[in-house]
């Protein structure tokens, strides 16, 4: 046995661990959150912790062989901009029968993302949005993307149960935090509506997501599910209603369906695109009678994973890069990494200066922030391999757009607007997105950031039973295209990798 002493957020705790335990496992076992996008395979180097007398180590590769004392990184709460309401539907308040379970009923809308979870607390008597909080998905330590989560469920005994409990625990933490702070009884929370991608919704309800990761990618369920809060052991009214909104397919989840249903587009916009850039990139082309959609496996590069100094939209992330070492960080704190919008700016700038050539070739890594200016003493670079990752991600998205356009025989000129969802849409600079070819030429002028539409959809579902109709109308008109089946996709994908 060895003694492990953990310093985290100003507190010290210690524990005995058996010999040759992997440090990452020991930390997780004690309930601490460590971000490990590669799932502990030793390939991303992001699960670093500070070991006294030894310095920073990659915790998934470190075996405990003596008594050690470690310091965990400062916990940073995910900072995603709140949903924007300008382009959202407005519906009359009608929260439904569950609201009669309490004299002062509350509802919660949850956007269950692969990387981030957003909770919106609503007073059902008035429909007022009282509070929004965002936290990282605690499953992130098992891998950054849905495939690694599914893999965990099917290869680790009780894996599905573990991942499900992670979600329930974080839900309960948020629920009790809210009830305590607002001085209300858990019984007053009577309605919870949840949007998320199909994998997350399977895991939440304890349904095996295995089939989602193999041809023919058939979900176990797509339809709306309503369960009692007690069935999920949630800290709220046990008779409360938990509504999981419906999905379309394995890779078009309730987050997209409800996101599109939540939109109130400008009436003049007849044909428009809706793109949600998250850990995956879902694309929909909305026309008068049909909604054509596809999911582009953009990968988590724009969420900062697979990028050497990449990170999510958290405090200290470079989110805007103006060139010449001028940049802005989230929270205006010293920079510790680069998030998606910052990456796009940077690549656009490197292309303009010729440091990166149009085919994506970069001779040597580029110093963005020297160590003495960074927030953690480590210099921030962008590497040639990062550029390749960005090429893959942006090509997946732009190829998806092109394939939907071809399906409908429309061209960029026929597209009236591009509604860009996801936290990253708020920070993204249109000219940079066009410069790197993430958005086809001619469309950048038409970009409208709409924030977290999945969250907006969940909020609408909490507030109004009438939202159901819009969700089912959306679902009925959706036409799914599986890109990996499309003959043209491979060639498109290759060609669009150029800048």
């Amino acid at each position, binding site marked *: 046995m060895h003694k492990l002493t953990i310093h985290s957020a100003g507190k010290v705790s210690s524990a005995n661990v058996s010999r040759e335990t992997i440090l990452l496992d020991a930390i997780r076992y004690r309930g601490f959150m460590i971000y490990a996008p590669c799932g502990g395979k030793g390939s991303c180097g992001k699960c670093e912790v500070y070991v006294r007398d030894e310095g920073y180590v990659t915790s998934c590769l470190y075996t405990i062989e003596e008594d050690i004392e470690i310091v965990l990184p400062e916990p940073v709460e995910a900072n995603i901009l709140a949903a924007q309401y300008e382009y959202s539907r407005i519906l009359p308040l009608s929260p439904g029968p569950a609201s009669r379970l309490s004299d002062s009923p509350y509802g919660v809308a949850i956007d269950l993302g692969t990387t981030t979870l957003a909770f919106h607390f609503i007073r059902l008597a008035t429909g007022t949005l009282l509070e929004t909080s965002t936290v990282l998905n605690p499953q992130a330590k098992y891998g950054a993307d849905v495939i690694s989560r599914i*893999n965990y469920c099917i290869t680790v005994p009780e894996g599905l149960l573990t991942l499900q409990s992670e979600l329930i625990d974080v839900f309960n933490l948020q629920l009790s935090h809210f009830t305590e702070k607002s001085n209300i009884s858990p019984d007053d929370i009577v309605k919870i509506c949840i949007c998320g991608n199909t994998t997350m919704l399977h895991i939440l309800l304890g349904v095996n997501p295995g089939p989602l*990761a*193999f041809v023919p990618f058939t979900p176990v369920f797509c339809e709306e599910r309503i369960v009692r809060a007690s069935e999920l052991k949630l800290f709220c009214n046990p008779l409360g209603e938990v509504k999981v909104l419906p999905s379309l397919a394995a890779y078009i989840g309730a987050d997209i369906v409800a996101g599109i249903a939540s939109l109130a587009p400008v009436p003049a916009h007849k044909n428009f695109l809706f793109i949600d850039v998250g850990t995956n990139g879902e694309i929909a082309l909305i026309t008068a009678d049909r909604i054509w959609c596809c999911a582009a496996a953009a990968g988590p590069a724009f969420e900062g994973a697979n990028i050497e100094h990449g990170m999510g939209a958290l405090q200290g992330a470079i989110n805007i890069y103006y060139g010449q070492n001028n940049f802005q960080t989230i929270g205006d704190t010293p920079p510790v990494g680069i998030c998606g919008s910052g990456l796009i700016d940077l690549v656009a700038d490197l292309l303009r200066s010729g440091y990166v050539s149009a*085919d*994506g070739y970069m001779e040597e890594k580029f110093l963005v922030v020297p160590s003495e200016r960074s927030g953690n003493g480590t210099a921030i670079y962008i590497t040639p391999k990062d550029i390749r990752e960005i090429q893959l991600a942006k090509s997946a998205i732009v190829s998806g757009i092109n394939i939907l356009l071809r399906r409908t025989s429309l061209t960029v000129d026929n597209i009236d607007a591009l509604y860009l969802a996801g936290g990253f849409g708020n920070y993204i600079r249109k000219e940079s997105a066009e410069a790197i070819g993430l958005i086809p030429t001619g469309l950048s002028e038409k970009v409208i950031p709409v924030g977290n539409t999945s969250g907006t959809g969940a909020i609408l579902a909490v507030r109004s039973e009438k939202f159901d109709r819009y969700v089912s109308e959306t679902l009925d008109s959706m036409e799914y295209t599986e890109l990996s089946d499309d003959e043209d996709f491979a060639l498109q994908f*290759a060609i669009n990798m150029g800048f």
Partner: protein
Amino acid sequence: MNEKLAKLLEAVEYGKVDQKSPYPPNLKGMDGAHELTQQALDAGIRPQDILEEALIPAMGNVGRKFSENKIFVPQMLMSAKAMGASMAHLKPFFASGKIKSRGTFVIGTVKGDLHDIGKNLVAMMVEGAGWTIVDLGVDVDAGRFLEALSKNPGAVVGLSALLTTTMTNMGEIVAKIKESTPDTVIMVGGAPVNMDFCRKIGADFYAPEPRGAVDFLNQLAS
């Protein structure tokens, strides 16, 4: 070297498919692999020499530049297309035995997985090294690999997967092949695959990029 072969080498290395192809921009309007191969054959150059002095070194350069991160998937794919245009002219000579193949390589993306870009690149690089390719496509189960092996005894097998989940299907396929023909050499590849996994499932070789596969096969053939 013969001037025509030097031009063909260049066309394949830089991905010039034919005269009307707009790619690459700096070779616009010039003859591509399609025309240059026909001209070489018309000039009486032996098909074997076209393969050995133009195509193989061209694809060798492409593989090297890819592993040095100087070029990326698109350029490699265009080179592969150019090689394909040249190969179309040479196919009859393989069939008639005028060109000697270095061996047969059976390749496929494993069951449950539809991703074929990586698989195609490896197939083309191996073809460009003078091997005969049997491409089984995507979502291929053990049965189809066994069937291909019974038609092509002694062939080397390549398994590809892009997903951590579908990668697990490789183990079953390797086991079935080794059970039926223990001497079959099996290579595995794809983004989530590594050497540890290769050893664990009893496959014979793994490389992180196509060039490694080509080098390994060439050693086998020599």
